């Protein structure tokens, strides 16, 4: 078994574009869940409208920048549509409506009726050429040993992680301001916030839209990297991976989604490489077949998460004191 190669591929995956995209999706959820206490179980819906907003616009002949704006606009509209009927009600209603909406949007996108626009089950391909045309990195491979990236991949990674950094910077400013204090107060007890003159509904809408737009960035990034959108990429498990990433890092911590995403992707790739290596070396003695590795690695990652929740329930960056005073 080649440990160096397994390690290198795990590291590649830990800093890759999907890790950046999951970090963004989880940052959005952190705004919703970690800071405002909103249970959004449909983050993937925001990713979908971001990705399709961009892909459809470019596919129909629009410029890329317009596509990105359409993606953002679609996320804002989705946030308002989801929030206005549900955010005056208890938290659980938002959870129900968001998870249902995510599935509805996926089915609508893949429907025959919308095929001329969305490509139906086939999706849309090759729409991100204008993005790659902007790539300032000369062609070639960069890195050392087997830890290396092609110039196209590196370009998407650079933009992705830069976006993560900018979003985190913006959120740091916002969450340290009195605006952020109101969000946290709503998370703790919305009636208390109301009794002190805060328009709780307006803040929840702002939080839902802001976190949703950040989720849309995640969808755009995934779509641009693969030059493809397909409705069946945007299944609900993505939302739960984003929650996994967030809880791994520690909700309510600004850097938690980044730490969580890097560790999540490292572990996913590492268990995969390790299991395959062990299989080839004959260590597993017929217990496991090659096509079962993908499933078993998720079981292993799940086991790891359970251990984390038992040993460190506040997440990697969370504070124990904060967890103990949680009264929700």
């Amino acid at each position: 078994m080649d440990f160096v190669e397994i390690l290198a591929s795990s590291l590649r995956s830990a800093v890759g574009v999907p890790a950046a995209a999951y970090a963004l999706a989880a940052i959005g959820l952190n705004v919703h869940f970690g800071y405002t206490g909103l249970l959004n179980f449909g983050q993937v819906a925001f990713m979908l409208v971001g990705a399709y907003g961009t892909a459809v616009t470019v596919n129909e002949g629009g410029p890329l920048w317009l596509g990105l704006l359409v993606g953002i606009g679609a996320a804002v509209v989705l946030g308002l549509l989801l929030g206005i009927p549900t955010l005056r009600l208890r938290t659980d209603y938002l959870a129900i409506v968001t998870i249902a909406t995510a599935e509805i949007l996926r089915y609508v996108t893949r429907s025959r009726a919308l095929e001329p626009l969305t490509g139906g089950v086939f999706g849309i391909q090759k729409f991100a050429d204008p993005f790659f045309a902007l790539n300032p990195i000369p062609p070639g491979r960069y890195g050392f040993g087997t830890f290396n990236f092609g110039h196209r991949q590196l370009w998407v990674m650079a933009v992705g992680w830069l976006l993560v950094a900018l979003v985190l910077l913006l959120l740091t400013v916002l969450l340290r301001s009195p605006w952020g204090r109101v969000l946290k107060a709503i998370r703790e007890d919305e009636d208390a916030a109301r009794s002190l003159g805060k328009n709780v509904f307006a803040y929840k809408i702002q939080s839902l839209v802001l976190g949703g737009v950040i989720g849309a960035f995640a969808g755009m990034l995934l779509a641009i990297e693969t030059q493809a959108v397909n409705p069946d990429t945007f299944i609900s498990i993505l939302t739960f991976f984003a929650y996994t990433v967030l809880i791994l890092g520690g909700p309510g911590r600004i850097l938690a989604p980044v730490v969580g995403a890097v560790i999540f992707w490292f572990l996913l790739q590492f268990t995969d490489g390790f299991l395959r290596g062990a299989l080839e070396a004959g260590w597993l003695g017929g217990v496991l077949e090659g096509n079962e590795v993908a499933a078993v690695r998720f079981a292993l990652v799940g086991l790891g998460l359970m251990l984390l929740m038992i040993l460190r329930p506040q997440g990697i960056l969370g504070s124990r004191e904060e967890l103990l005073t949680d009264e929700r």
Partner: protein
Amino acid sequence: MSADLLPGLDGVAPQPGVPKPDPILVVRGVERSFGGLQAVDVAHLEVARGAITALIGPNGAGKTTLFNLLTGFDHPDAGAWLFDGQPLQGKRAHQIARAGMVRTFQLTKALARLSLLDNMLLAAPGQRGEHLGGALAGRWRPQEARNRTEAEGLLERFGLAAMRDRFAGTLSGGQRKLLEMARALMARPRLLMLDEPMAGVNPALRQTLLAHIQEIRREGATVVFIEHDMDVVMGTSDWVVVMAEGRLIAEGPPAAVGADPEVIDAYLGRRHGKAAEA
């Protein structure tokens, strides 16, 4: 005990719904029923400005429901109320709080994972940095500094200054009552509505809380509080309003109300066998 401080209430007859010379709050025909139960049915109630008014009554009398209705946390089936001449029915809870009528809760609502100082700062009215644009522009800092000075002063006054950076969730029950009262003051209320501020508090802290209530009144705010302990009511309030089964059954100076047979009936049961609502 404080009749000399409030000459305005001297000539007011001790009858339910009696008009007062300078009311800060006038309630007219506020009704609320839950299914078949008429929880609140207040025909007329006036709260005298600058006074401490106690709202008493047996369990289930509708005191907290009336509080919820007046502060926008529940909606009445009928009725209207004027706060300083401004109609408040149909307004939402945060609008009522901003108008200057601030409440606390029977079960304290400390914001557990916010520091005491943040709990206090949250309550400051009219903060620029609470709007997205204002938060980004960053020009809220001078105002925040002023609010901070005020918050620290209040924490000092309520004996919580040493704990200002701790999470509110680490406070004891009594300390939470203190924090909630201090936080409500930070919102600069003209009318402070305290829902059982003394519930579950040890006798020593109770005296502290009572002193704070007296001081709040001295500074010019009006206080309405719900209380069960008759000794507290007699010693602290300028005026007592009694509710039973959703209605006002008596009001007047503490001594007069304490001797009122209607009130004694309401607490101890009318005729034999018919106990007060549990």
